[in-house]
């Protein structure tokens, strides 16, 4: 074994009742490299991480850290050995200060009392090492998600001696923040830290990683140097047998249409202070309109105002020539609007309820209390959409919490399709789901559009917007700054508009 290896898993297997989550997987992590762990949902990425960090015990195989055999029983033990993990969900206590969070469980003490000065000073230094300059005595909750993520990483880095595991660290960051994170990761790498990076974003993986290990269905596919692999090759290795060609993954751009239909919805100076500036947006019947912008640019806020989750301070909405100033969800639904929210877990699914109940929820809300759908009708509806959207489940009476992310998203989509919407708002419909499901959901979107449904698509993935939309409006710093139409929609133009902003830049670009 070469001396650069710091962490090694050899022949590791993990069985759950009825499932082989991992079988005889080998994995090698070297000092000073960023190693991406790739695979679809359920490929065994998280299980491998859990086994290495002591969350779960492997059924067979060994784990070596610096050539010594280890078998951590808790994450705490793994931490003490030198393996730090930052999970997708941020594990900080929002109600205490940044410094306290960094030193939680190991507060510096002087004469038996907590030494606040030393703690704050050291916390500041730890963060400065990652070029983060914030007030460490403020509460964690007063900082944005991105900063919180950085704090969590800083804490992990400080406690680690050699290995840092980042599980989907970029899923809640916008592209600028991702670059910040990458800068930090490269710095750590140059200092000799070994980093395991898990992400669904192929582009990011290719940008940052040196090497990748691909898993599929609990089996090792192989270890590759990033420079020797193309994106298409990687995708082929991840999805394997069910080989997805580029045509099946809707890579091909759809021909944008110029819509001349009637205006379905029009906003007039709609505004909510502190969340989005007044905007005028006209959505024509049958078009697919995209909203582009960085995280926090007001994309979601715009959709929430249209759907009535948040109430506008000013302005009004006109739907089918009816002007309305007050909007609330049920009214929006009755006017033919549907809204698939961004945060599936918090705003979408009701985990306790079954798939059937989750599907009928919005339609029942539209119908009101007293025209309760009989069970038979509910079952018919649920079955119809389970078949139509190919939701993978043994039964519609399963709790929705048991489904994978992609299938949960399909259930939410089904929930809205039952209401027969005229306008479907999709907020990040493919975030955090695996490649296979991503492709499927994009296909569903496109076929809905082809059937004539009006769609408002919000997405951080520019290629998704370019592929699907007839028109893209661009938001920056909470205001609508421009739009691109037809063949003018390209990734570079969108990025330029987001970056430079202003209608002028847009015109120059188009003209």
């Amino acid at each position: 074994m070469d001396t650069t290896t710091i962490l090694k898993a050899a022949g590791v297997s993990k069985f759950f009742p009825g499932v082989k989550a991992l079988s005889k997987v080998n994995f090698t992590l070297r000092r000073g490299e960023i190693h991406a762990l790739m695979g679809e949902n359920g490929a065994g990425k998280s299980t491998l991480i859990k086994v290495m960090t002591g969350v779960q015990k492997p059924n067979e195989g060994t784990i070596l850290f610096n050539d010594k055999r280890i078998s951590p029983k808790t994450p705490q033990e793994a931490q003490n050995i030198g393996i730090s993990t930052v999970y997708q969900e941020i594990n900080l206590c929002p109600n205490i200060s940044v410094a306290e969070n960094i030193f939680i469980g190991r507060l510096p003490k002087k004469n038996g009392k907590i030494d606040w000065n030393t703690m704050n000073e050291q916390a500041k230094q730890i963060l400065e090492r990652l070029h983060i300059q914030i007030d460490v005595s403020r509460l964690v909750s007063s900082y944005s998600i991105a900063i919180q993520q950085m704090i969590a990483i800083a804490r992990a880095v400080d406690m680690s001696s050699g290995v840092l595991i980042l599980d989907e660290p970029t899923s809640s960051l916008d592209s600028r923040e991702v670059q910040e994170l990458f800068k930090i990761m490269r710095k750590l790498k140059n200092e000799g830290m070994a980093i395991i990076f898990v992400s669904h974003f192929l582009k990011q993986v290719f940008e940052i990683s040196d090497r990748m290990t691909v898993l599929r269905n609990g089996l090792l596919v192989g270890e590759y140097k990033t420079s020797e692999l193309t994106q298409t090759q990687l995708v082929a290795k991840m999805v394997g047998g069910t080989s997805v060609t580029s045509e099946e993954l809707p890579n091909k751009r759809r021909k944008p249409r110029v819509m001349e239909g009637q205006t379905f919805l029009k906003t007039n100076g709609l505004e909510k202070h502190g969340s989005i500036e007044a905007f005028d947006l006209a959505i024509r019947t049958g078009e697919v309109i995209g909203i582009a912008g960085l995280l926090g640019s007001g994309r979601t806020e715009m959709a929430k105002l249209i759907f009535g989750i948040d109430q506008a301070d000013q302005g009004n909405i006109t739907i089918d020539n009816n002007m309305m100033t007050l909007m609330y969800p049920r009214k929006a639904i009755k006017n033919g609007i549907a809204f698939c929210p961004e945060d599936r877990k918090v705003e979408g699914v009701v985990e306790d309820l079954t798939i059937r109940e989750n599907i009928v929820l919005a339609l029942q809300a539209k119908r009101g209390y007293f025209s309760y759908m009989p069970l038979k009708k509910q079952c018919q509806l649920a079955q119809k959409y389970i078949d139509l959207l190919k939701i993978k489940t043994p039964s519609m009476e399963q709790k929705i919490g048991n489904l994978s992310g992609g299938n949960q998203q399909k259930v939410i989509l089904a929930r809205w399709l039952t209401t027969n919407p005229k306008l479907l708002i999709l907020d990040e419909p493919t975030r955090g789901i695996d490649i296979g499901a991503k492709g499927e959901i994009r296909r569903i979107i496109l076929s809905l559009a082809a059937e004539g449904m009006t769609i408002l698509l919000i997405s951080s993935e520019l290629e998704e917007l370019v592929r699907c939309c007839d028109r893209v409006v661009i938001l920056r710093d909470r205001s609508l700054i421009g739009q691109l139409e037809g063949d003018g929609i390209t990734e570079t133009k969108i990025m330029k508009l987001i970056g430079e902003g202003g209608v002028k830049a847009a015109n120059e670009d188009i003209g």
Partner: protein
Amino acid sequence: MKTLVKRFAQSKMFWPLIALICIIIINLILIPGFFDIKIYNGHLFGSPIDILNRMTPLLIISLGMTLVIAKEGIDISVGSVLAISATTAATLIQSHSIFIALLAAIGVGVLCGIWNGVLVAYIGVNPMVGTLILMTVGRGIAQLISNGQIITVHSKAYHFIGAGYLLGFPFSVFVAVVCFILLYFLMRKTAMGLFLEAVGGNQTSSRFAGINVKKIMFIVYVVSGICAAIAGILISSNVNSADANNAGLWIELDAILAVVIGGTSMSGGRFYLGGTVVAALFIQTITTTIYTMGIPPETVMVAKAVIVIIVCLLQSNAFREMFMRKKAVEV
């Protein structure tokens, strides 16, 4: 057949039912004549009938509480609402007809429910704190209504509601059955139950799906208020008097217990009206058993606590798993 048994064993009704059966068997062995039911004057008499009769106020309140807890809330004011309704009815019946007295009693229940509902749903007060207000103030209001006296009721018609018999059974049992059927209908034959479980499971998602979350919250508190008022009528008519200080004292705790034993989680979501009924029956049976066995009143609470702890542990999956794993290791 086997799957049917297995499915029943996994249902929320299973453990409370087992507990109830156990306590009945204990009674069968320890207390001779516990199950003797005599027919006297066309009425059924005996301990089981007595238990049924006595449990009705608790049951009705527990039904309302089930809905409140399904929405991740809690209503600790039910005992005080019960006292207000009891004193209102008892005071009014002195000078007015029984219908006005009953209507007024239920009316104050609605008012109390509206008060709680507005505080919790529309103003956003924490449910424990919000209903604590009425819990403390309520007994004071009841005292004001009754002038600090225990009011004695002389109306025979009123007495019939809590102590009369119909078709051999106590009339109050019919009241409870009607309450159960009404609530069951409201919850399972309208969309209310689905909405309530959705809101209790995930409030934000429910709002995004177009459900009026605040309205649901408001409705459950009003229902809980009405249930408490009906219980107040039953209690005061049973003993022919209304005591502002002691009527339904601590009944909210028994009610919460009944809901939890019945399988509804304190963190909201799925609720089980049937489970609540079994659990209320169980709690009342324990109380009666303890009294019948001659356990000194000072220790009644302790005995009850021990039994309740055992039932709660049996119900907990974590505990059962612990126990079963141990057994597996021994084998």
